[in-house]
């Protein structure tokens, strides 16, 4: 099936990514290869990805980090013996989507979009899953905690970056991802909406 031997760098990258327990970025891979040029590593990765394109295993990049995973069309063969992934409540899936599409967001902002209060447990579930994390505080009165998605979120949902979030460009163009208080929600009755934060403030590191 393979017509020629891969070059040494491709072989080394292949071995490293197979052996790794975590996705690796270009810098880490370059260091493993004894300080290889990062552009060469990136080019070799692209070549390797193409090599595996049609196979049962693929090489993917998620948030700048690379890993091998099985091809999605073979899910039916592999799924049956594995424990079902944790089922998320509807509230949790919505909160996750809101964090992903609007990040960073405070709980008040999440509540303003959903029009309902969010129980602390919902955010906990998402943090426990490793998909969202505290990203600092918004510098407004009360200094509310703000949340953002993690690299594990990109890994889990197979996203190369947040730009790959389904429909995000269209939603942004339609103004549906605008800051809550820019839409003038203060006129609407909803408990949480009045507390939406100031869009000028940035997340703390």
């Amino acid at each position, binding site marked *: 099936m393979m017509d020629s031997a891969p070059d040494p760098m491709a072989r080394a990258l292949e071995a490293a990514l197979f052996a790794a327990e975590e996705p690796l970025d270009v810098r880490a891979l370059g260091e493993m290869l004894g300080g290889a040029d990062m552009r060469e590593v990136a080019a070799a990765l692209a070549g390797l990805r193409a090599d595996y394109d049609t196979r049962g295993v693929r090489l993917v990049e998620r948030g700048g980090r690379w890993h091998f995973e099985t091809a999605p069309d073979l899910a039916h063969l592999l799924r049956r013996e594995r424990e079902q992934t944790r089922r998320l409540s509807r509230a949790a899936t919505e909160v996750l989507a809101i964090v992903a599409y609007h990040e960073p967001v405070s709980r008040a902002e999440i509540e303003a979009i959903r029009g309902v209060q969010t129980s602390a447990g919902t955010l906990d579930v998402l943090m426990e899953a490793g998909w969202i994390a505290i990203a600092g505080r918004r510098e407004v009165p009360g200094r509310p905690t703000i949340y953002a998605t993690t690299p594990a979120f990109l890994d889990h949902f*197979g996203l190369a970056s947040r730009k790959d979030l389904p429909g995000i460009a269209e939603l942004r163009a339609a103004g*549906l991802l605008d800051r809550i208080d820019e839409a003038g929600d203060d006129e609407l009755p909803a408990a949480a909406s009045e507390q939406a934060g100031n869009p000028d403030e940035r997340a703390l590191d």
Partner: protein
Amino acid sequence: MQDGLLFAEATSQDDDWDGIAAPGPADDGALYLTIDGWEGPLDLLLELARRQKVDLRAISILALVDQYLTYIERAEAVKLELAADYLVMAAWLAYLKSALLLPREAQEEPSAQELALRLQIRLARLGAMREAAARLMARDRLGRDVFPRGAPEGLAIATRTRWRCDQFALIEAYGRVRARTAPVVHMVRERPVMTLESALARVSAMLGVAMDWMRLEDFLPPHADPQLRRSALASSFVAALELARLGRAELAQDEIFGALRLRRAG
């Protein structure tokens, strides 16, 4: 995004969501049976809006308001305790409805049309997130649809320690051990003292040349350090007693703790 796509798709995908806790769209009759299934008034409004089966931007806000108010009335009729949120929303929608029915000129700012538009945007925003959540959950997910390597060898990071120690530290350590464990010999340091013999000789010699009473302190070595002075005082006192016993000196003391004086006897 095409108009209408948002809600049309969301409706069709509703049942496919992974782990929906609340009920999906059901028959009209079922809608009125419970209020617990709705996640707040906005959720209910969105569901009602979807039932219009048109683009949300073309939705009839008046019809939506009527549906909501009808829903709330019927819910109250079956003696459901309505959450305050639902009632506040109902009151606000009733106000919005009356404002929408007023002639445009008579309206205050913001106009009823503007408020209606904002409500529409809000519903669209929630709808968008609901649909986004569904699409996110339907992706090929790691651990559910695609799998990482089952038994990765792992990248071992072996830490090798290079120990640092130099010759001086080594020798010093040995010295320390030896010093710590060397047999201990106690030596009492020599201290300056005046023996009784030398005090006797000194006092009797000085009495030989003295003409009158002298205080005992005057017999002590003049520049002695304090320790020697204390020793000399004690020795000289004993020497004075000895000379008095031998009849070679007289002692006198005027009061208790007063100065002790002595002179040659005879």
